[in-house]
């Protein structure tokens, strides 16, 4: 015997579970990014009120319904609850779908009473946990699933009566492929009874084996073993510390032991990892009464820290750090080094009470390289080096600079540095390819157009100040005549410009709220001037500009 527990309108149920006040109300769940947010699901009351899937948020808001954003986390939690609920009754549980769980209840009478009682208990238990579910008991898993999907509340189908009881259900409880559903609809076959009644051979002739399978399902005659849910492959090691650890070195010792364990377990299953997760439970009392700079450092060395702010934690939640690796590895010493670097960069804000370390299991990568290919840096070494550098300069400031395709001066972004896979020995560049930092790219920064005759037009390079220097500029007749910016100051001896630049006008000038994910800034407009300023060592050439939005002046760089 099998029991199925099914939660109708699961997306809504997942939301309502945490907001019991919504139970009696019409609720619709939205998904998508602004400005397009549409209805993904709704409960019966909302459907009756006129809500349809695909409506926009604004349209849905016109109806008397409660609107909530879809939350995968809540759905996962609801699913876990459902699974827990089922596992409390039976050790053999099939995780059929997010909203459907099947239990093997054979032989459980002595524990839980007859199937009807068990089903009632199951439904009540789910309800107590915040999920209103349908429960059905039948001789085989599929019959139970279909009954739970098709009939509200609790349904018990005595053995041998599946075909009879399921007969009135609509065909779509079988979750048929759309084209077969269309054919059945055309045939006027709308419920399982009609499908069950069709001659078998004729069905095979017309719908193939799939047709036969559906017919058997319709008759409730498919016997299949349950596929019990396996506990997930989890690699996690935890150690509670007798005394809170304040220094990094003893912590490293603990980490080393945990890592060895983890790596051994992974290795035993021929797996590696590409992500490590470190959770540190901190001494809450210490956080509260410790001043901000009372933090641990290596060898008692104090480190001024901003970690408290950067960590994803509330005061009593553990501190969590992730180490993401570019490729699967299994080297406990390397892992330890990486964790140490990470902790040095972001030390915990209080003594550590408990350490939990988990690893994401993945298949290790094959190690064979090409015979004639140049060696690239060993990925693990490279990762270590990059992590070290990031520790010094900050994560945002390391990688490969990528020039953006825009007229905005000096626009670039940092890309994660990842050497491309070896390409073979062919020369990689052909003339005409653009190279970062090449003269071709810098063309716009030249004072003169490039010419094959260097004698005629000299080229000049701009040495940029990053960030540009704020300047005070005196202007006469629209032209700068005097400048003061730190050490650069004096009369402007000669001037050329303005050179006018503006762009990205379609982006708003407001910085918040920022909705556009592809934005690298807002609109901009500026007038540039090239000026000559006499200094102590002769005349110096500068590029200055006025930001037209703020009217502020800056020195952008100097010409060599």
């Amino acid at each position, binding site marked *: 015997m099998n029991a199925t527990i099914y939660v109708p309108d699961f997306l809504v149920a997942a939301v309502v579970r945490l907001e019991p006040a919504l139970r009696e109300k019409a609720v619709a769940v939205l998904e998508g990014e602004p400005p*397009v947010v549409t209805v993904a699901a709704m409960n019966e009351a909302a459907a009756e009120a006129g809500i349809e899937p695909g409506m*926009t948020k604004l349209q849905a808001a016109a109806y008397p319904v409660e609107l909530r954003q879809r939350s995968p986390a809540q759905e996962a939690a609801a699913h876990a609850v459902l699974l827990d609920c089922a596992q409390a009754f039976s050790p053999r549980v099939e995780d059929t779908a997010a909203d459907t769980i099947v239990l093997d209840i054979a032989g459980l009478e002595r524990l839980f009473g007859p199937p009807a009682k068990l089903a009632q208990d199951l439904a009540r238990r789910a309800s107590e946990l915040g999920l209103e579910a349908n429960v059905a008991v039948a001789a085989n898993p599929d019959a139970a699933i279909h009954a739970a999907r098709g009939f509200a509340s609790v349904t018990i189908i005595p053995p041998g009566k599946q075909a009879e009881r399921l007969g009135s259900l609509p065909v779509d409880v079988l979750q048929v492929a759309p084209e077969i559903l269309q054919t059945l609809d055309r045939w006027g076959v709308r419920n399982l009874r009609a499908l069950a009644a069709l001659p078998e051979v004729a069905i095979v002739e017309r719908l193939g084996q799939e047709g036969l399978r559906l017919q058997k399902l319709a008759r409730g005659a498919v016997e299949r073993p349950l596929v019990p849910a396996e506990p997930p492959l989890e690699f996690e090691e935890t150690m509670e510390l007798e005394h809170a650890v304040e220094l990094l070195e003893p912590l490293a010792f603990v980490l080393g032991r945990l890592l060895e364990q983890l790596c051994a377990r992974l290795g035993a299953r021929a797996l590696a990892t590409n992500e490590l997760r470190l959770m540190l439970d901190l001494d809450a009392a210490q956080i509260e009464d410790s001043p901000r700079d009372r933090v641990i450092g290596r060898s008692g060395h104090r480190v001024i820290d901003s970690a408290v702010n950067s960590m994803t934690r509330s005061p009593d939640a553990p501190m969590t750090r992730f180490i993401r690796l570019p490729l699967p590895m299994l080297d406990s010493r390397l892992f330890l080094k990486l964790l140490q670097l990470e902790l040095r960069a972001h030390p915990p804000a209080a003594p550590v009470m408990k350490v939990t370390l988990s690893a994401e299991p993945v298949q290790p990568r094959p190690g064979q390289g090409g015979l004639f290919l140049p060696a690239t840096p060993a990925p693990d070494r490279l990762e270590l080096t990059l992590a070290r550098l990031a520790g010094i300069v900050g994560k945002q400031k390391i990688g490969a600079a990528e020039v953006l*395709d825009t007229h905005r001066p000096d626009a670039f972004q940092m890309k994660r540095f990842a050497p491309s896979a070896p390409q073979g020995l062919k020369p990689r560049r052909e003339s005409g390819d653009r190279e970062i930092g090449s003269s071709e790219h810098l063309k*716009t920064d030249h004072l003169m157009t490039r010419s094959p*005759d260097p004698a005629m037009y000299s080229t000049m390079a701009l040495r940029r100040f990053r960030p540009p220097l704020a300047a005070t500029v005196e202007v006469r007749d629209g032209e700068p005549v005097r400048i003061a910016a730190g050490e650069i100051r004096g009369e402007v001896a000669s001037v050329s410009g303005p*050179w*006018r630049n*503006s762009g990205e*006008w379609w982006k708003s000038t407001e910085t918040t709220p920022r909705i556009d994910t592809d934005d690298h800034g807002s609109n901009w407009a500026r007038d540039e001037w090239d000026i000559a300023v006499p200094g102590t060592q002769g005349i110096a050439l500068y590029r200055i500009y006025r930001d037209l939005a703020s009217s502020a002046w800056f020195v952008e760089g100097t010409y060599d």
Partner: protein
Amino acid sequence: MYVELHSASAFSFLEGASVPEELVDTCVAAEMPAMALLDRDGVYGSPRFHLAAKKAGVKAHIGAEITFLPLRHRDTENVSSFKFQVSRGRLETRNVKRETCCIPLLAESRAGYQNLCRLITRMKMRGPKDAPPEVIAACEDDLREYAAGLICLTGGDDGPLAAALAEGGIDAARREVERLVSIFGRENVYVELQRHFLREEEARNQAAVEIARELRLPIVASNSVRYARAWQREILDAFTAIRHHRTLGTAGRLLARNSERYVKTPREMAHLFADLPEAIAETGQLSSRLEFTLADLGYEFPRYPVPEDETMMSFLRKRTEEGARERYGRADRHLRQRARRQIERELALIEKLDLAGYFLIVWDIVRFCREQGILVQGRGSAANSAVCYSLGITAVDPIQMELLFERFLSEERGEWPDIDLDLPSGEQRERAIQYVYQRYGKLGAAMTANVITYRGRSAAREIGKVLGFDPEMLDRLAKLVGSWEYRDPDETLERQFRDGGFDLTHPRLRKFLELALAVQDLPRHLGQHSGGMVVCQGQLDSVVPLEPATMPGRVVVQWDKEDCADMGIIKVDLLGLGMMAVLEDSIAMIHRDYGEEADLAHLPADDPAVYAALQKADTVGMFQVESRAQMSCLPRLRPKCFYDIVVEVAIIRPGPIVGQMVNPYLKRRQGREPVTYPHPSLEPVLARTLGVPLFQEQLLRMAMIAAGFTGGEAEELRRAFGFKRSELRMRDIEVKLRAGMERNGIAPKAQQQIVNSITSFALYGFPESHAASFALLAYASAWLKCHYLAAFTAALLNNQPMGFYHPSTIVKDAQRHGLKFKPADVARSKRLCTLEDVSSFTFHVSRKETADGAQRETRNVKRDFAVRLGLRYVKGLREEAARALVRERERRPFASIDELARRVPELRKSELAALAEVGALNSVSSFEFQVSSENEPANLKLETRNVKHHRRDALWQVEKAARPPGPLLEEIAEADAASPLPAMSDEERLVADFRGTGLTLGPHPMAYRRREMDALGVRPARELPGLPNGKRVRAAGCVIARQRPGTARGFVFLSLEDETGIANAIITPDLFEKNRLLLVGEQFLLVEGVLQNLDNVVSVKAERVLPLAITGAATRSHDFH
């Protein structure tokens, strides 16, 4: 003095952001005396530029930017390999060197302009439409051939000088300029300087000045204008992104660096070029050199080849006289004399204006059509001409109708006549067009262009795309923009967006709206006008450039129909008219099936059946008189003669409706209001229409009589009516009109009345002649419907989509008129609907007592036809599959579905299923037998019944037949077996009918629910006319049309169809607002309200509307919003 000599408009298609008129406006504001328009590879915008400039008193120089292949490519590679290279490189952008550059050329003289047109024509004809620039680019030889009369500038960042400079430095640039000098001549090359505040440009300018000094060439400043005002750079950027299939976010450096390419004032330019004043001064001198404007186009009238001993005029005279004899030969003497006098008068004028060639060309096309059996009829103002009538070009007798010839042609107007020919849409019209091409040669005839502009939806879609919206959102936005025609005063855009589910406070949506509105009416690309052809004696390419159209074998000119007319180019419109095709098809069917001849030229003039139908508004399917508005007017107007139909056709138009002329006319006609005239002097003009102006001609005459307008001024008035861009012109005319009436001593009240009636025609007004031509078609369609319903209905169904109603309504209407339909059937149907003779089974028996007392029995066999639905109505069945099926069946009938599937492999499974679902396979493999009904005399009534199969049997069989049985069993034919499936219920059949064919031949869905409707107190549509005015009623039905006309102040009109007929409901704006979703979305509605039954016009003024769940079938309505 500064003159902008290098500007491009939006007619550079996505490379410019302002229309020519806007450029001229800013030019005037900047006090510039002249301006030159140089669009990319064309003179598309030049007529509009010329006219706007003429009006503003600015000199309009014409030129073009010509795509040019620089020297290096021609020297090193041949064109084909170059093409390959470029096509591979097209995905690359800026970093790939520009393969082509463009040379700005200005027309100095008429010869120069003609050369420019020929040069562009040669380039454009090199490749297909929208060929990449490298394919069509001019080469040096092209330029040398057409250089005379043209002045060359060295261009801006995409000019030849810049290209050479970037490629090979100043030496290469010097060589390039020298080459231009060798092509165009030393005095015709100007070194161009531009300043947009860009460093590279300034570097280029220095080199250019140096080269100019070395070669002693003049330097000239320009701003290479791409838009009129600085903010329009945003439009240009959006266009650039569209052109490169990018979004603004990814277009990067393809976009402009700044907003400096607007029309700058001479002062700004002088300031910019303060160091080079000679560059500014030179613009004025160059401008004064440019003599050519479009006023000096040099277009010549086409000539028609005539025998040696004839002139075109004598030839025309003979043809006219021949025709007149035929047309008026049997008329009374008085009419004959009037006709002769009028024809003489017209011929004299034609001779004087030297238009004989034009009339002969049109006559020749009409003659060709007649010879080929293609139905043809002239429409529009040509119907005012007795010569056109005699030549067979038009079918309305202008003498009998007393039409105003001057509306067609008058000496003082200085405008050429405009003859439009209506032809059956489809293949027949194409044949006529091809005939013209063949007769006048590729460079002698062309279609006029149709400039496709950004409109609501297209603008929303493309702007949304460049702003990076996803497809789903684009769909929603595009739908939103195409909303109902009428907009409430409080229906702001914010509200529309809110209703559509969008929040306009989102900055990107705001920008979207701003841009989508800004690009409205800007040209997008050049299309082909549906029928306008211009003809010129083998030299059209020197008047306007020609280019290939998308359709193979078609050539279009770069100007649209209006522009051609503005430029005085004669054109003939060969328009496709669905109703012409219906008439033609009906006549063919009457000939083939009934064995009778119907000649449209000789229809009985006053057929009582026709007028009875019109008076009852029983007009579904009839040309021009079938709309809801027409139907509500017909019972009040009660047409009794042909002229009434002319009035009927003209009166339900936005012009008369907005001008509030409909009601006064109808009241006067019914004798409820006295016939008065705004001024006694207008009586002769308005007497025919009871003192209410209804036709364009009357308005012209009113202006001439009341305000003393000359013919030319009246013409200006008429032209201002025609199209949208004339609002300003309308205002000018009004001032003039009032001044004229003041002089003639017309009282202010009458003045206002006259001005109102004239200005309201700005929206749209029919010329009387045009209405008469249409009325003729309306009469013909009504006559056919009344006398040959089967043929007419079949033809109507075969030419869908057309007209006001969905095919399902046409079928139901015909059924109510007693026509029988037979379903689509693979054993009988052709692709199109056909007639089947069902007459042999119907007898009318009458007994008469003869003089000698004996009783004599006569049996009259009445010919009767049913319409067999064609396979084209089976949705999802492709045309080729349908044709293959019919072809195969004609070889041998199909014995089973299995056999059908095997013998017609073109049929896909989905198509077989679609056929089965609508019952088209029911008769295959079933046997037929005849049953005689017991109640009828034996052998009198026989019914053919198909047994064995129902639709589900066929569907059951199809599913098997569509699965290949494998090679072993392939050849074994299998008989169809009965299925275990139940037959479809009525509801299921309805659903299947509507899903599969969009209509049902069975009972109307409402018929199944009549009992429930009766219980609800719902009256059938048929009963409503019998109920008194003011009675509270309930009506219900399937919504077949929803209208919210712009002229109805927010009222919505619904047509509700049930099994007995069509009921009309009027929804007030308030009620609409409260029930918007219901009224827009529901298929079946119940309306409760007060019956308005006045003058036989019946409608329910709704106070309450309720949705009805009648059927799940997807019925359709025509919504006009």
